[in-house]
């Protein structure tokens, strides 16, 4: 799933909405689009819509044709994106400053801000095709769930009796006395890393009984407790699924040009220099 933000830079609310509508219309040609609206003024008892959360922390209202509405408590923007990633091709986040995703700003022609892919005064100034192409070139947002769902949709899934997965995450401490790791920062050899990952997937998929392999590795800053890397294997039986997951993560760590800097509360270092 590709994610981008829309932020207001002095436009009126309607202008922001028209920009959102126009981009959603364009992206819906490519796949399912999710929209996340953030509004800091929504707090206990001041929801913009009448809350359906009565007698429970999460409520769904379902219709006969699959239409639904939901409300609830305890969901952050990142959580919402993780949920959308399961079945959306795109997600639009409206109203979040300093999003880590590319952002369209409305109400200015100043596109120099970091992370800004387009700056428009109004929706007529948009070039939706250019923005769609730009998003396509960026790293997608994936979760373990989105990768598992993808392999389940494989045409070969009829022959699959097993899905095995590996999740690598940021370990705050090697032992209890360790200085806490705040975040890791991954640098990638653009192009070559992706080629190596794709070649590794193809190689593993050529094994007997292995049907689909998905490898995904985040880059940039990954914070303490967050997931870094996923290996998902769809296979006929559990034995080859387990073996392929293990070989997949081992080979990814050995062969793909990615470089990890560790930042702890006390220090900052490239991980290969420590061993």
């Amino acid at each position, binding site marked *: 799933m590709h994610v981008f933000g829309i932020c207001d830079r002095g436009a009126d609310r309607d202008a922001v909405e028209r920009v959102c509508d126009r981009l959603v219309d364009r992206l819906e040609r490519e796949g399912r689009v999710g929209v996340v609206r953030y509004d800091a003024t929504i707090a206990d008892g001041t929801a913009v819509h009448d809350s359906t959360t009565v007698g429970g922390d999460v409520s769904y209202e379902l219709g006969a044709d699959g239409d639904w509405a939901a409300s609830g408590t305890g969901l952050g923007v990142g959580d919402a994106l993780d949920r959308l990633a399961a079945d959306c091709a795109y997600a639009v986040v409206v109203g979040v400053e300093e999003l880590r995703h590319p952002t369209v700003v409305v109400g200015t022609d100043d596109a120099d801000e970091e992370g800004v892919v387009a700056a428009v005064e109004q929706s007529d100034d948009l070039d939706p095709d250019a923005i769609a192409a730009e998003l396509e070139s960026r790293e997608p947002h994936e979760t373990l769930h989105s990768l598992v769902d993808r392999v389940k949709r494989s045409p070969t899934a009829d022959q699959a009796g097993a899905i095995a997965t590996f999740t690598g995450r940021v370990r705050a401490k090697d032992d209890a006395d360790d200085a806490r790791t705040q975040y890791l920062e991954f*640098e990638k050899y653009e192009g*070559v890393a992706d080629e190596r990952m794709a070649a590794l997937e193809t190689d593993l998929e050529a094994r007997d009984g292995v049907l689909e392999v998905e490898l995904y*590795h985040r880059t940039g800053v990954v914070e303490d407790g967050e997931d870094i890397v996923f290996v998902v294997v769809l296979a006929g039986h559990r034995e080859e699924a387990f073996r392929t997951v293990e070989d997949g993560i081992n080979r990814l760590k050995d062969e793909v040009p990615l*470089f990890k800097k560790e930042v702890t509360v006390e220090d900052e270092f490239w*991980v*290969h220099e420590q061993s």
Partner: protein
Amino acid sequence: MATEWKLFADLAERAGDKHVTVDADAGDTVGDALEQLVAGRPDLEARVLEDGDLRSQINVLRNGTNVLVEEEGLETVLEEGDELALFPPVSGG
């Protein structure tokens, strides 16, 4: 035509840049390009070379291919528009 080096992790920090263009050209060797890269960058030189040889942990790629494993090492001859990369052991995951 010049040749471009891409540097990663601490090697980029030691070189002061992630991209360095050198004069080595088609017909010259990877070793020539490396010599030009480390010239005037003693910190980088000490990190990647030991008695004039490449340290064992350092990787050199030409257009994504490891020249030490699949080509003629530092003797590999450059072609027009090659992209060279220099990096320490990979550390993904």
